[in-house]
């Protein structure tokens, strides 16, 4: 960053910290709340202060009813996020039709058949379409019949059942149905009790899905990697093809990607995921459970990576090389970095010139608000507002806070499974001391841990947990960032308020945004959003120009 750019950023930071009228933004946001709501929300909204370390935020707690949260439910986290992208699985939604319908093709987890899969189910929606009698008399029979019909029509090798709200209430046992399915048809079947009301957000559903994959899938295969540098990319859902850009780069470096979890993934391939040499973690929130459990069970280390942003991607590649500690690999990584950054330099310079000094807000699900700050920095932009829908405190503050997080009744309802080292398959690459060495110092790598989003942000920045419409609206008005990256529920209200908005969940049907080539596409999209010509047309000319021109007529005469 040049001296000028730094100066500009510092000015921006001050502007934001003080707010346009000199008031503290946090107070402005919370001022209009009733006492009860204020008491709750003040713990979830923080403004970073100069010189204060380890600022704490409340997260992963119950949403206040009526507040217009952006959050979804446990089913959305399990089926929509983690399980849905598995292309060789017939995922049956057990419930009334809506939940299956809404999660049909609406998340951009791109997939194509490969050597592991002859079938791709991701374009289909399967549901038991429960009717009143099923609610009254129980839905297990219908579920079993639906499975029978699915077997007859599609003969999948794996069926997963995702439960919706009424299923748990009426006591359908989807796990028992899954076991019977396995016995009857000789296929893999997994039941998920991911009823919408469980937990406080999608996050509970991620955990439930992680548990299922860990219990029944990972470790059941024996397909060995072809190379000595093989990885899984955990928490990569291949939105807009992000995963494919990562695979392209890693492959150039000589690193073999066994699995993306779970974008473009197959159960067939996930079975052997434990044989990888290293796990990379993109979306920490949705998949850290599997990373941790694989570490415990198989001794497999995980590295928190970020392929969003040019600098971030370079750092990630260097950390992977550092982990494998192989001179040839390190050399190759440097070559690839030099080549890839040179290839995009002109484009990035072009967009940086347009975007330097612009400010951004990001409200995403559970990791992107951190990841995208790096890419925005590459473009000379400053993230001044960042928030998550369903993150936990460790996503904000780093995993060191985990032992201090108090469990509440809602969290306790989400099962947490424990695993033990596998007698045959446990293998440690490095001793604890070696790992400590790898992590220590300026050049230390983020191995088996995550430092969170907040440490990368500046004084004055606003961090919001479980953001809602009221606060989003107030932030837009108060801070007026140049662009706001959020979801579809906010997008159009932000845009109506005159601020460019792009969806950071779906990339507004663009992408990939990851890696080197993705950075250019993102830069192009942000520049397009800010500079698109139609912004000039918002105010009609007659609002500026007087209706009458020329001389005012004398009284009694026509002009």
């Amino acid at each position, binding site marked *: 960053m040049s001296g000028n750019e730094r100066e500009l950023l510092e000015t921006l930071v001050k502007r934001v910290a003080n707010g346009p009228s000199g008031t503290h933004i946090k107070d402005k946001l919370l001022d209009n*709340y*009733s006492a009860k*709501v204020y008491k709750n929300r003040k713990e979830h909204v923080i403004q970073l202060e100069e010189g204060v370390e380890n600022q704490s935020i409340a997260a992963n707690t119950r949403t*206040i*009813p*009526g507040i*217009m*949260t952006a*959050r*979804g*439910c*446990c089913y*959305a986290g399990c089926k929509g996020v983690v399980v849905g992208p598995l292309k060789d699985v017939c995922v049956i939604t057990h419930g*009334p*039709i*809506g*939940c*299956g*319908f*809404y999660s*049909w*093709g*609406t998340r951009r987890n791109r997939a194509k058949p490969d050597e592991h899969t002859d079938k*791709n*189910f991701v*374009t*289909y*929606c*399967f*549901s*038991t*379409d*429960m*009717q*009143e009698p099923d*609610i009254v008399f129980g839905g297990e029979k219908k579920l079993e*019949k639906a499975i*029978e*019909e699915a077997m007859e*029509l599609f003969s999948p090798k794996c069926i997963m059942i995702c439960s*919706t*709200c*009424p299923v*748990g*209430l009426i006591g359908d046992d989807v796990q028992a149905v899954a076991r019977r399915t396995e016995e009857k048809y000789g296929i893999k079947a997994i039941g998920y009790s991911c009823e*919408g*009301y*469980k*937990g406080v957000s*999608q996050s509970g559903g991620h955990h439930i899905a992680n548990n299922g994959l860990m219990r029944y899938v990972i470790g059941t295969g024996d397909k060995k990697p072809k190379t000595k540098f093989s990885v899984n990319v955990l928490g990569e859902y291949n939105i807009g093809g992000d995963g494919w850009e990562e695979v392209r780069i890693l492959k150039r470096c000589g690193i073999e990607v066994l699995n993306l979890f779970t974008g473009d993934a197959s159960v067939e391939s996930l079975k052997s995921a434990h044989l990888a040499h290293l796990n990379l973690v993109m979306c920490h929130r949705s998949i850290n459970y599997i990373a941790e459990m694989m570490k415990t069970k198989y001794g497999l280390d995980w590295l928190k990576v970020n392929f969003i942003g040019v600098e971030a991607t370079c750092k990630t590649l260097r950390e992977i090389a550092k982990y494998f500690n192989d001179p040839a690999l390190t050399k190759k990584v440097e070559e690839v970095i030099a080549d890839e950054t040179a290839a995009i330099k002109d484009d990035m310079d072009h967009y940086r010139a347009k975007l330097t000094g612009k400010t951004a807000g990001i409200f995403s699900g559970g990791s992107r608000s951190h990841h995208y700050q790096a890419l925005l920095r590459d473009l000379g932009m400053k993230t001044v507002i960042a928030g998550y829908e369903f993150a936990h405190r460790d996503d904000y503050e780093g995993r060191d806070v985990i032992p201090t997080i108090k469990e509440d*009744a*809602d969290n306790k309802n989400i099962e947490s499974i424990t695993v033990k080292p596998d007698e045959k398959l446990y293998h440690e690459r490095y001793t604890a001391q070696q790992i400590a060495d790898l992590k220590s110092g300026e050049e230390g790598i983020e191995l088996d841990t995550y430092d969170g989003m907040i440490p990368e942000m500046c004084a004055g920045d606003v961090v919001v947990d479980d953001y809602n419409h009221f606060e989003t*609206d107030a932030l837009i008005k108060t801070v007026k960032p140049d662009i706001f990256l959020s979801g579809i529920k*906010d*997008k*159009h209200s932000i845009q*109506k*308020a005159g601020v460019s908005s792009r969806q950071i969940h779906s990339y507004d049907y663009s992408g990939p945004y990851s890696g080197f080539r993705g950075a250019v596409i993102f830069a192009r999209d942000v520049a397009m959003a800010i500079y698109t010509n139609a912004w000039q047309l*918002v*105010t009609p000319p007659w609002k500026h120009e007087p209706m009458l021109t020329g001389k005012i007529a004398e009284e009694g005469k026509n002009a």
Partner: protein
Amino acid sequence: MLDMTTKDVKVREALRVNPCKTCQPVGAMYAALGVAKCMPHSHGSQGCCSYHRTVLSRHFKEPAIASSSSFTEGASVFGGKSNLSTSAKNIFDMYNPDVIAVHTTCLSETIGDDLSSFIMDLELPDGKLVVHTNTPSYVGSHINGFFNMMIGFMNYLTKKTGTPTGKTAVFPGWVNPGDIRELKRIAAQMNVPAVFFPDQSGVLDAPMTGRYEFYPEGGTTLDEIRTLGDSDGLIALGEIIGVEPAEALNKKCKVPYTLLPLPVGVAYTDQYVLALRKQSRTEVPAALEEERGRLVDLMLDSSQYTSGKKVAIFGDPDIVIGLTSLALEMGMVPKYVITGTPKEEFTRKVTELFEKYGATDCKAKASADLFELHQWIKNEPVDLLIGSTYGKQIARAEDIPFIRAGFPVLDRYGGPLLPVVGYNGGVLLVEKIVGALLDKFDRTCAEEDFEIVL
């Protein structure tokens, strides 16, 4: 695309594949968004509300506001009463609507929350209202949710005072804002002062001004809903979606109603115009008759390209019935006509249309899904497919020209601003249909058969 769909049609009793319907609450939310300064409220877990707002925003490319009771496991066990009262307080504090329109979900329905008594116990700010309807997701479809919310509003608000409003009530059914504008324009042309309920025009097609309005200008006002009982008659559009709210208003306030098909195409628009003429007792103005004449002229001019062409139409019952009528007017063969909504009345109405035009060898089915439709198409192909966005999978798999109409259309822009109803809506549809058929011809015909003039 859809590579696992085979020709082999098997009877399915339990497995729904690629549905052609969704659940009740989204219909209730959409209906409530057509009421001025109303906050739709989803009484259940957060996911429902999030999904419904999402699908509405994706269809209209507009903000779709709604709040949720945010049930947790505790509320699911002990009931959602406190969730509702907390919600109501917070919504009025933060978002200050005139009314909160609560709908239930399969969660609150399964645990048996008694919304009437919950609402009775609420402490509301002066002049503020909470209404509700029951929308169990496991009954009917989103269509039921839509009319149930209308009935919910009328149950709470509508009274007959005996002082006539001098206005005709119109229930437009589940249509886009562009349709409502067109229906209103025709009513105005026919000199009929009318109240449309619900009315999403202005709300879900709000103009860009640089200022975000939480409650955009638009929607049926509460006073208009209150006085529906004193209307000078009711025209309910959409024979499937309209009948129950029309019956409800008739039962409560003795307002006589005319139930009509959604005015898509010439004949059904004629019926709407005739019903309006009956209300105003004025002649059909020349301008409107000219609009009609232009549509018929267009149909005749282009009929050589549409006659005998096979079309599959899917979606919500009333728009599908309307589109089928239009297709028949254009001389097309509506080979397969389906809805996912479980209403057998749909099958009867469509079969009547087949008979009226002597269309043979055509199938109509309610409670169907897109997987089944695709299988039928695989067995005997069609020349054109009309329906919601999800049809694009079939259209691509089978290389069929495809026109988007109905709900939801998630992948195109501007649709909700344009009417499919009325003579002008008919013109837009005919232009699209003929264009789609001829585009395919231009793209695929042998080079020696390629025509400059068609």
